[in-house]
């Protein structure tokens, strides 16, 4: 299994917002967008959607970009949630059915301070929860940091804000801060490990970090090779070759 990132991988960091993407080895890079090879077919141009935001405005995006990078930070070996595109994953989720609470029961009455064994008990859809949670957390930070924004704090400062959200110590006016925090944490982990087709897990970085091969169709020939190192490159279900292999494998 390949460890670390190649020069080509670094170039794929393109497309992130202007918030400095933290790259392996601590490198700070701002690389211009390069269309992925073969991504645009001549005479059949698709709009370029990489880097587009469907839900967040730019300030909300700066908040999310900074927060997810603290939840899953870059280290010398592997990039963090920022580079992995978790912002774009969450943005697309919130712009679609999940954000609207499409498969949630949201009728009242609501008991937002219910004990944890009852699960989610707010009136807000996930999209509403994010809008309110970001705005009220930014206000919470500005009031305590001489009008600085969350994303202007040093990493330790951002971590302390996230810990205050997690514990409930940050008493936000409209929502219980732990519910916002837990939703953000769950969505960040999703975006780091979900198939790259959903906009995060860029270059399958989450999968390569742990050694998960993705959408392979069969391990029948190796499941009894106990302890074998499985070294084939992971595949996304959106990979054209993978789709062909699946189809021909039947």
């Amino acid at each position, binding site marked *: 299994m390949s460890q670390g990132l190649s020069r080509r991988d670094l170039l794929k960091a393109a497309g992130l917002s202007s918030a400095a993407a933290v790259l392996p080895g601590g490198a700070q890079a701002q690389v211009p967008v390069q269309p992925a090879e073969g991504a645009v077919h001549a005479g059949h141009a698709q709009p370029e959607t990489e880097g587009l935001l469907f839900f967040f405005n730019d300030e909300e995006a700066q908040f999310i970009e900074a927060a997810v990078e603290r939840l899953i*930070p870059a*280290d010398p070996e592997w990039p963090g949630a920022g580079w992995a595109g978790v912002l774009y994953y969450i943005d697309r989720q919130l712009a679609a059915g999940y954000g609207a609470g499409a498969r949630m029961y949201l009728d009242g009455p609501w008991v937002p301070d219910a004990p944890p064994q009852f*699960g989610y008990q707010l009136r807000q859809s996930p999209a509403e929860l994010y809008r309110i949670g970001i705005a009220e957390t930014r206000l919470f930070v500005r009031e305590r940091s001489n009008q600085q924004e969350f994303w202007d704090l040093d990493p330790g400062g951002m971590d302390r804000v996230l810990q205050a959200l997690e514990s409930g110590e940050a008493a936000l006016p409209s929502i219980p801060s732990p519910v916002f925090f837990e939703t953000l944490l769950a969505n960040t*982990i999703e975006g780091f*490990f979900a198939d790259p087709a959903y906009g995060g897990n860029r270059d399958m970085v989450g999968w390569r970090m742990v050694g998960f091969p993705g959408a392979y*169709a069969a*391990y029948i020939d*190796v499941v*009894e090779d106990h302890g074998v190192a*499985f070294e084939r490159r992971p595949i996304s279900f959106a990979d054209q070759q993978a789709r062909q292999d699946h189809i021909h494998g039947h």
Partner: protein
Amino acid sequence: MATRLPPVDVVLVGGGLTASILGKELAEAGNTVVALERGKMRDTVPDFQSPTMHDELKYDVRYGLAQDVSVQTLSFRNFVGQRPLPMRQLGSFLPGEGVGGGAVHWNGQTWRFQPEWFELRSWVNERYGEDFLPDDVTIQDWGITYDELEPYYNHFERVMGIGGLPYADGDVVIGGGNPFEGPRSQPYPNPPMKQSYSGALFEEAAAGLGYHPFPVPSANMTRHYTNPFGAELQPCMYCGFCERFGCEHYAKASPQVNILPFAMASRNFEMRTHAYVQRIEWDPVAKVATGVTYINAAGEEIFQPAGMVVLCAFAHHNPVLMLQSGIGHAYDPETRTGTVGRNYSYQTMTGVDVFYADGRNINPFMGAGALGTAIDDFNNGSMDHSGLGFIGGGYVAAYQTNGRPIKYHPVPSGTPRWGAEWKQAVRRHYNSTVGLTFHGSSVPHPNNYIGLDPTYRDAFGQPLGMLTYDFPHNDRLMARYVTEKVRDIALAMGGDEISVGWLDDHYNIVAYQTTHNTGGTIMGDDPQTSVVNRYLQSWDLHNLWVMGASVFPQNAGYNPTDTVGALAYWAADAMLNQYMSNPRPLV
């Protein structure tokens, strides 16, 4: 005013496993049968196709094949007197929605119950004395014995193509199988699954401690198989996308593959989808069900008259439908009277993770739903409860089913929940951890039941079902006792460290535990303490029958599907050979 349709002989409420079983058997015998399924038609082609089926986010995180709770959910509380609140997202359990129901996204772990479970009250009284348990452990006999059910287990296992290793062939011990299971009239139709690395590590440690490991009986096919109806199944590919997913390979037994095509082949059978059943209609004078009323895809209210009504919905929804229809006596936890909703039980789950040195390459992604090695030494009939103060037990297994990283990224206890240290731990442990599962039984308790919610309503304006549940003291003692044994096995497995997930909190509706909800319309031999008789026929309306795990008087330390399937064939036999020629109460 509801539109009234022409009558049919039988209406089945639901389109899952038990509806498929009954649909085929009753239609082939010449009855007109309509199954009313709230969801859509689903089949291997075009719905469960690779590679897009290999989407952890859609199917495992967003529960793409499970019930849509925005339409209908339950409310929940831990105890009588607490304010019930709606389950706003799925979590603890995952009922299916759409044709095939939960038997599309199940794992395929296919266990028989030990004989003692069916006569549990009598067995406890005889073995340990009538004063062994406090009176709030409301276990009771099923009204049927293992020996009576055995031929139906055997048939269901052949229909589904179960693979496993029998302990004995007749009186001749083969060895290698489960020495604690009841007698089998025939061996499994298929050989057991291959063994995963995690299973091998568990087997070595468990055998070393004197326990009796064996491969988990599996509905993931272990070779090409043709079932008695002619359904063709293919060998499991160990792709690791099984639980929560439909199978693209025709390798996991499901209603769509094994049973339903043979029901659909009969002109007498109709699967009517997008039909949300509201209530059972019944005649209080004649004491018979007259049909069911449902809402169709256009939002119209439809009355389907029928000579016989069979509830084949998910376990907790069968009692809810009876309560919404005013049939029988609703259970009242204050007076402990009434039967509908009584004896709701669940499953008592704990687990222990074993963390090995980095580089061990467990390869948890090479999995299958029922790929596991188990011991049954701590199930109810396997051990002596004298002096322990509890009844019940369960099996312990090392399953290798679901190494998909959004949901599966084990880290040792005490690891931070996020940040650099968490990320390092996830990287370090993902591929070098083995999880052991204790799959424990669940006794009924007067506090635990299904009722109707006083406040919250579904999308059709009906009261939500209301679940009141917490783990009974009996089950906490039982889980503590067995989990200590599992910890000892884990310590013998040669890892660097272990983490034990004790059962030490209230039941919560958030974390996935199992979809093995039971009780609420229980079977028995006394109408004062059961809803259906030994044939699964209602004591109140003789042409109303109830299938599924809602008839279990208590839940065993096993997965329920084998018993659900066997009971459906047992009931079908009674319908066809005793009831239909002369409709009446059979008991």
